[in-house]
């Protein structure tokens, strides 16, 4: 167990989720007699969930900052219908349509961000109102009709990487992408080892790195194989490509940039952040605005995939996105969460959905199971916290865990006494 812990670094909670995801995939692969890991099914799974995963990226930032956004489904639907109308009625090209859709997302986000950050209304209320407003707006401007979009635009929701170069029986671009992925993973592992060595920090043993690389690269190559060997005309889907780009960009922003640190700081302790010079209002504004932009993008991808915008697009998406974020390890109280964790959380839900469908389980039971999974994942988190932040592995070896006791030089304040006494 210690070896496993070394393998996946200090973040055992994330490890737990990845572990759960792999276990789920293996379970369904066996239970469905191999129908889970077929090229067609995997491509389908990505296409059918990419917009939820994109929402989860924005949502995790919102939740880290200590807010929530209930309006994403409605915003997605409103942006979708507007873009469909722009293209149909004004005859603008598809790329201009996408730009205008993103611009609309900025405006909507500024509206919600203004109320949340500068007026100080809880995001729950602002976005609950936004959920109603933009749903109504979608049905008002679209007159509750479906509005088709041209084939060019559909590509962002249902297109694939094109066939380029010699025909070797696989999709060349997909292979290239897979190889780039492997190269990136290997390179960054080498770099982090070199850095750790230079700084005199603890360098993990060589075998740990090697096993880790073999596992990750194996997974990437296997996925590449699946995507590259689909039925003719399919390959790595465009929405998946957009998603991958967003994961890399937002993963970088959240963990490596100043604004990313500020989001965590505001969510972790707003007052402490403010006293360190963080402009928390600006951070909150940007986080809410960003969410709406991503919601607009998700809406457009969905419209592209379903070839038309409709009055009930995006219903319930907010809940799927929020569930993905919490399963992925974010804390309800803010300050905790990762982009990659939320993607894994979203994939857990997606695989569960897909696998149960393949097994012929009805929508009724599927919902019950998904609900229980969400509850258990968060219960786990809450329980961990009450136990003094024990890891999953720590839980398995409970007796060896440290108990949380009052430190030597801590005194309790009167406030604590009051809350304890009553």
């Amino acid at each position, binding site marked *: 167990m210690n070896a496993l812990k070394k393998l996946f670094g200090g973040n055992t909670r994330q490890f737990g989720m990845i572990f759960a995801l792999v276990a789920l995939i293996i379970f369904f692969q066996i239970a469905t007699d191999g129908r889970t890991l077929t090229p067609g099914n995997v491509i389908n799974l990505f296409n059918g969930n990419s917009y939820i995963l994109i929402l989860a990226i924005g949502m995790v930032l919102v939740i880290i900052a200590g807010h929530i956004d209930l309006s994403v489904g409605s915003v997605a639907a409103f942006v979708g219908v507007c873009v469909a109308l722009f293209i149909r009625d004004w005859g603008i090209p598809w790329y201009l349509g996408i730009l205008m859709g993103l611009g609309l997302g900025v405006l909507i986000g500024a509206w919600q961000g203004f109320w949340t950050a500068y007026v100080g209304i809880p995001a729950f209320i602002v976005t609950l109102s936004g959920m109603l407003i933009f749903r109504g707006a979608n049905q008002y401007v679209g007159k509750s009709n479906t509005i088709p979009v041209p084939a060019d635009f559909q590509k962002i929701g249902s297109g694939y990487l094109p066939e380029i170069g010699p025909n070797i029986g696989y999709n060349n671009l997909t292979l290239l992408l897979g190889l780039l992925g492997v190269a990136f993973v290997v390179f960054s592992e080498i770099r982090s080892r070199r850095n750790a060595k230079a*700084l005199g920090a603890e360098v993990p043993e060589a075998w740990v790195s090697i096993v880790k690389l073999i596992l990750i690269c194996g997974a990437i190559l296997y996925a590449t194989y699946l995507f590259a060997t689909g039925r003719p005309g399919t390959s790595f889907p465009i929405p998946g490509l957009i998603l991958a780009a967003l994961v890399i960009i937002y993963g970088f922003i959240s963990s490596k940039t100043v604004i990313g640190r500020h989001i*965590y*700081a505001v969510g972790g*302790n707003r007052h402490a952040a403010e006293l360190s*010079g963080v402009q928390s209002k600006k951070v909150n504004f940007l986080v809410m605005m960003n969410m709406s932009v991503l919601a607009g993008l998700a809406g457009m991808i969905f419209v592209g995939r379903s070839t038309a915008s409709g009055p009930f697009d995006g219903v319930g998406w907010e809940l799927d996105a929020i569930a993905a974020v919490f399963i992925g390890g974010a804390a309800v109280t803010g300050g905790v969460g990762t982009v990659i964790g939320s993607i894994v959380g979203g994939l857990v839900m997606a695989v569960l959905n897909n696998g149960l469908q393949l097994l012929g389980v009805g929508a009724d039971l599927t919902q019950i199971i998904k609900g229980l999974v969400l509850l258990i994942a968060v219960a786990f988190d809450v329980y961990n916290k009450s136990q003094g932040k024990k890891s999953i592995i720590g839980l398995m070896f409970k007796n060896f865990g440290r108990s949380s006791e009052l430190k030597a030089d801590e005194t309790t304040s009167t406030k604590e006494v009051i809350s304890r006494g009553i």
Partner: protein
Amino acid sequence: MTSLNTHSDPIILEMRSITKEFPGVKALSEVNLRVKAGEIHAICGENGAGKSTLMKVLSGVYPYGSYDGDIVYQAEVQQFKDIRASEHAGIVIIHQELALIPELSIMENIFLGNEPTKRGVIDWAEARIRSTELLARVGLREDPETPIKEIGVGKQQLVEIAKALNKSVKLLILDEPTAALNESDSQHLLDLMLGLKGRGITSIIISHKLNEIEQIADSITIIRDGKSIETLDVKADGVDEDRIIKGMVGRTLESRFPDHEPKIGEVFFEVKNWNVGHPQVQDRMVCKNSNFFVRRGEIVGFAGLMGAGRTELARSVFGRSYGRFLSGQIHMDGKDVELKSVKQAIDAGLGYVTEDRKSLGLNLLDDIKATTVSANLKKVSKHNVIDANKVFTVAEQYRKSLRTKAPSVEEGVAKLSGGNQQKVVLAKWMFTDPELLILDEPTRGIDVGAKYEIYGIIQQLANQGKGIIVISSELPELLGLSDRIYTIFEGAITGVLNKDEASQETLMKLMTSARKTA
């Protein structure tokens, strides 16, 4: 339970050699307290002397078994397991921060947790009649249905007492009851206490306002460093303020401070006619026309009782992060500066280490390295991208130079002890390279060894030519550390003393009374 003989002078409460230890720290050591029935008994001592801990032992917050010694109350040894048990016995404690729910009415608050019922349904008619009676007893003329948030702190205090009376209190404990009250509200409360005494209710009062104690107390027990020093009979012993102060501060100063030769330069920071209003209460002032200055290399102390407005002054100067700014100027290096936000203040070269480390100073989810750079991310980033290597190096440097005890800079700050947490906070502000560093209670909740180290860091910073402001409730700390000390009372600066003219007695006088001259 053991029955005990009652003496001719009835003792309602006797606490016998109470010892309370926290891991590594002895908060109370063999404390004795004898309270006569029907008297007002004051407990005096500096902050951190152990007064509150003693009251927590008495009221069952620290349950029986977690301390040594006996509590004899009404001639029986008591074994309170929680606050409910002590309240059941008639001991009610009213904390400095009131435990009232602002949205509920006076009546609902009085009966909270103790609602009069008729067949399981709350009998509001009965509650109304009884609360009107209780309000009359405490001299509060308000409709019982007024929400708590609509009445002032003074009246809220009275509601707390009414609530206690409703629980048929026999021994009432008031922790700093007048700290947040103005003159007339305080007087009313003191009169009420005398009135309650007339009805046979015994009170224990903890207060820093010695003039009030002198006025109403029958006996005074002085606690110092977790030990009960003496019990004075106010009438018989002819006790006055000076006598109490002498008992409170009578400790011998060991060498608790590193040697330090101050290198004091020019005045570089000056605050003039500083006026700040309370953030919520419209007419209340938290800083009244304050003027002060700091020289380079100088450690300036700010002495004042809790709630005197020290923190409010510091935070309002630090980018107006507290209160409503009304008027005033800041000069830095001869120039007028306007510090309207914390960011501007930091950019101008100010740093502020808060007194409330956990709720205002640290993001407890972060690790040491993230905390160290959190107030100056600019310095470790290029084009807004943070250089993780730099962060690590910087944090590691501070960990070594401040001797922070942690396995690595990747350790979560929540896991550190108070002293080490404070070192991380100091590192965070040192990394912003401030010209003026304001330290608010820099050694609160920190054990003696770590205190010494933190004093050393502070002196080192001063030697580098920085200006340092130290706010502290511990007078020996201010006397040992500062080159000059300002005193604050009720939002106004009441005096300034140089190191050689300052003593605990002179400071205490200035801290507890309004400015006498001008």
